[in-house]
């Protein structure tokens, strides 16, 4: 069983227990955050880089974390920002042609060793990559992570109404894609 977040944060703020507390936080949230990142950047190596960088930022910033929000919403926020920055950097570096991010990510999906075009879950992944980045985050957080709009609002700093509308549009577009492919 993972220790309570408050206890972990207390441990992190003491030099003697800092590393142990950080390891516990990492173990507690690594899988959820990994899948959140992986669904955004698709490739495992990229996800690993983003996740490691994200946790380094957590290490540097956790002492200043104010406990007026839950730890996991803050971690999701850092992870989401790191994903979006990574995708932005890829555009700037020309790794993915400008305005062609979705196609690049679709190619990454198709390049996965386990990819099976006939399986619906892979089709669903291809459909999700057609969405604009922010809409993709909203859909993933709601559909896969099953987060309440209230928490999503804190993570994405967007009103609940806007998130509902965004999720609605995303689901419609995905449905359309799945019906046509």
């Amino acid at each position, binding site marked *: *069983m993972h220790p309570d977040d408050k206890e972990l944060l207390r441990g992190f703020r003491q030099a003697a227990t800092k590393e142990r507390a950080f390891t516990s936080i990492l173990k507690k949230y690594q899988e959820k955050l990994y899948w959140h990142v992986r669904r955004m950047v698709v490739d495992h190596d990229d996800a690993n880089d983003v996740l490691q960088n994200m946790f380094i930022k957590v290490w540097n910033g956790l002492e200043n974390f104010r406990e007026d929000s839950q730890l996991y919403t803050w971690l999701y926020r850092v992870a989401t920002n790191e994903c979006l920055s990574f995708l932005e950097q890829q555009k700037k570096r020309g790794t993915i042609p400008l305005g062609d991010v979705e196609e690049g990510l679709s190619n990454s999906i198709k390049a996965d060793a*386990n990819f099976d075009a006939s399986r*619906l879950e892979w089709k669903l992944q291809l459909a999700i990559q057609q969405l604009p980045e922010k809409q993709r985050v909203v859909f993933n957080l709601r*559909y896969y992570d099953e987060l309440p709009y209230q928490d999503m609002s804190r993570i994405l700093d967007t009103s609940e109404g806007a998130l509902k509308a965004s*999720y609605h549009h995303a689901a*419609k577009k995905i449905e359309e894609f799945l019906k046509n492919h």
Partner: protein
Amino acid sequence: MEQRQQIIDELQEISPFLAETRVSSPYQAPPGYFDSLAVAVLNRVTGEPALPMPQAHAYSVPRDYFEGLPGSILAKIHRLQENSSDAIRTELEEIAPTLSQVSRENVYTVPPGYFERGIAIPPGEQKAKVVRMNFAKRWTQYVAAAVITGILVTGAFLYTDNRSPVLNQQSQVDMPSELNKLSETELVKYLENPEQTIATSMAANETPVDVKKLSDEELDQYLKENADADLFIATSNN
């Protein structure tokens, strides 16, 4: 559960097709899925707000990836910290090799328990009250500033151009026309003896003083103040 049902109902409303697909999708649970599910259930039992378990996904990770992840991230953090201090050390070695040999140990000490107590502000040294200037006071200061500026500008003007209009008028006397007004006799007299002509003219302009009207005290006072003049008169008489 309520949250999940709410999400399913919501998706049913938006896209019945997608909701149906979701329910019947043949996902495989990834390795370790049930272990983490047990943790989430236990967290709920103990009252901690637990995150719902993620949906099954098509991606996979290398074997033992999560076991090694904390260690590799901590190793990376240590490496970054070492690189950072190495760079500072190398920089100092280049700039000042002698200084880089000196120990960085802190020589200062603080009273025991200083940081635990926190920094207390004595009652007498509390933050000073900020008093805002009122409008009238500010307005008076603006007026004073304007007056001083005016004085300075006027002074500067007078200093650089201190010739009065009267003097300017005198300097602009038309000499040829004034000379034309003089008679020939006056001009000849001036040319024959210019010094005496000027002296006569000056004497004519002086206001005559009637000495008889002056009192004895006034005369004594005049003689005391003008001892040299007295001497001069005596000499000239000799």
